[in-house]
């Protein structure tokens, strides 16, 4: 889990994925040939024994976060969100800003100074600012520039028996799974794509797949889990601890049916718990990947993750390990039986 800790704690808001990219490069450079493309995707290629199909496994490196948009006279920073963030979860959170990891706190007008009507409404981004402890604008400008990214400042830990807690598990969990799989040896050709800018519109994966030209693609995600109070059981889209979740359809994508059924078969045969993702909400790189070129049969396998797109998310270590195992067996199945 040390690699997952490093990945989770690295800053990598969409468009600024270099910390994550460097960790993965360092971790995997001995295992496969790699390159970084024009958009910043990190692409690995293992020819292995050259057997077909050529399988791509992909996960996105970027996370949702904030961008500094102006520096006020009194040294406070105004910001906008990058990717889908619920404004209501932002107030009083700590962040780090820019390459030098300047610490900041997201602040708001004290409750004492809010009139009764204001108190009833959730704070919006326009009501918030980041406080980096600067004296004034000049002082703040020494540390932060407009356009710098801010990223949640959350320590990665294991809590309870087997739950990991940290930021950006969407999709550093996927990066971790793909990294572990790239360390293994197969007979079929394997490419690994760590993509950029997924959170702002699936932008990196298209060009990645255009270069790698796989026969089939497996996207690994940290998908949201709604197995929590306030949600009816029929609205649980995934449940922690019940194994990797397999998508049939989301807003961006309908899975290749044959591949989807094959995943369930492989799971059953190898006694790996596995659940259908029971919603068609959300979107992933899968949507972009399958529609590139003449089309690529694609599937999305996700680790159920609570509280994604917030400063802290949670996932089950067993689910993570089972996702690695499941994809491993899926690759072996392709190796044995072809497409």
């Amino acid at each position, binding site marked *: 889990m040390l690699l997952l800790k490093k990945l989770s704690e690295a800053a990598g808001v969409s468009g600024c994925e270099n910390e994550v990219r460097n960790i993965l490069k360092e971790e995997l450079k001995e295992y496969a040939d790699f390159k970084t493309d024009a958009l910043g995707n990190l692409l690995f290629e293992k020819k292995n024994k050259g057997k077909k199909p050529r399988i791509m496994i992909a996960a996105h490196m970027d996370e949702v976060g904030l961008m500094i948009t102006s520096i006020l006279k009194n040294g406070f920073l105004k910001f906008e969100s990058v990717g889908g963030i619920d404004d209501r979860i932002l107030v009083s959170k700590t962040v780090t800003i820019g390459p030098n990891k300047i610490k900041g706190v997201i602040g708001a007008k004290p409750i004492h100074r809010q009139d009764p009507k204001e108190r009833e409404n959730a704070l919006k981004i326009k009501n918030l600012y980041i406080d980096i402890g600067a004296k004034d604008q000049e002082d703040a400008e020494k540390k932060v520039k407009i356009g710098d990214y801010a990223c949640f400042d959350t320590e990665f830990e294991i809590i309870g028996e087997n739950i990991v807690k940290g930021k950006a598990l969407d999709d550093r969990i996927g990066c971790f799974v793909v990294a572990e799989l790239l360390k293994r040896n197969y007979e079929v050709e394997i490419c690994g794509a760590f993509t950029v800018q997924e959170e702002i519109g699936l932008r990196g994966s298209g060009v990645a797949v255009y270069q790698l030209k796989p026969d089939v693609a497996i996207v690994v995600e940290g998908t949201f889990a709604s197995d929590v109070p306030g949600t009816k059981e*029929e*609205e649980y889209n995934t449940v922690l601890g019940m194994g990797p979740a397999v998508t*049939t359809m989301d807003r961006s994508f309908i899975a290749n*049916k044959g591949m989807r059924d094959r995943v369930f078969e492989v799971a059953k045969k190898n006694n790996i718990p596995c659940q259908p993702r029971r919603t*068609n909400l959300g979107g992933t790189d899968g949507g972009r990947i*399958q*529609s590139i*070129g*003449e*089309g690529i049969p694609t599937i999305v396998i996700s680790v159920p993750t609570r509280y994604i797109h917030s400063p802290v998310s949670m996932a089950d270590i067993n689910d993570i390990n089972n996702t690695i195992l499941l994809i491993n067996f899926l690759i072996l199945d392709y190796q044995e039986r072809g497409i």
Partner: protein
Amino acid sequence: MKELIKTLTETYGPSGNEEKIRNVIKDLVTPYADEVKVDALGNLIVHKKGSGDKLMLAAHMDEIGIIVTNIDDKGFIRFSSVGGVSPFILLGERVIFENGTIGVIGVEKIDDMKELKMKRLFIDIGASSKEEVMSKVKVGDMATYYRECNFLGKNISAKSLDDRAGCAVLIKALQEVENPKYDLYFVFTTQEEVGTRGAKTSAYSIEPELAIVVDVTICGDTPEGEKIAVDLGKGPAIKIKDMSVLSHPKIKQLLIDTAEKNNIPYQREVLDLGGTDAGSIHLTKEGVPSGGIAIPTRYVHTPSEMVNLDDLENTVKLLLAVIEG
């Protein structure tokens, strides 16, 4: 034409699950084609050789539907939409799954119709336990409206005329074409209803010089209806624009000139909502001049869509006149 429409509309085929409808169409077109293939996204690509430019003709095979998200202990099924399905239309409907399982749409007790949301609805397949449901229906399975095709005077009412009507036109045109002026690709696309996805990969592989999409459009001739100058029975509507494409002037003019020269009645479609496969096709690679012919259709995305037989025949005529020059 009537029998063809009946066959096509009564076949199952929601987005991503087009296997059944693809097989039906494949059987109908194979005797007339030089080459038939299915690509990675499931598009059926039918090549009819000709000497001129590559012309891609597209109609989508998929239809709207619903997808199972949960099955409870008592055997009730919760679902979400595949494409533009309204909970109001689903009330009291029956639906059918790929394996023929039929279900009834039920609704929780609600006091105000404003509260009617998809999540308040469920499917009842007559099972009394989760296990019994699971032997027939699984999470992720899709269902479509279950509805017969009826002939009402000169009109036809059926589910999925969007876009099986377009598929029928393409099939007829392929069967009747004699001297094509173009190298023809008849493409029956997948996943149009969820974002014109199949058209994208098929256009990429074909690399057409021009493209014409045959899809349905809404009508403005019903009481207090939509504001659109398209009436049922007044001829195919030549696409000027929809939300996904501005028809290429060359294609638009070709269609208008051909209709006028051959005395085929036509209308002009200026659509303020929705898109078509032309939206994906015209942006493929270096760009493809694209346009469309729209079949006037009432009650689109309901189980009782309605088209007019003369409109269908005239759409075939117009398409044939274009491809035979």
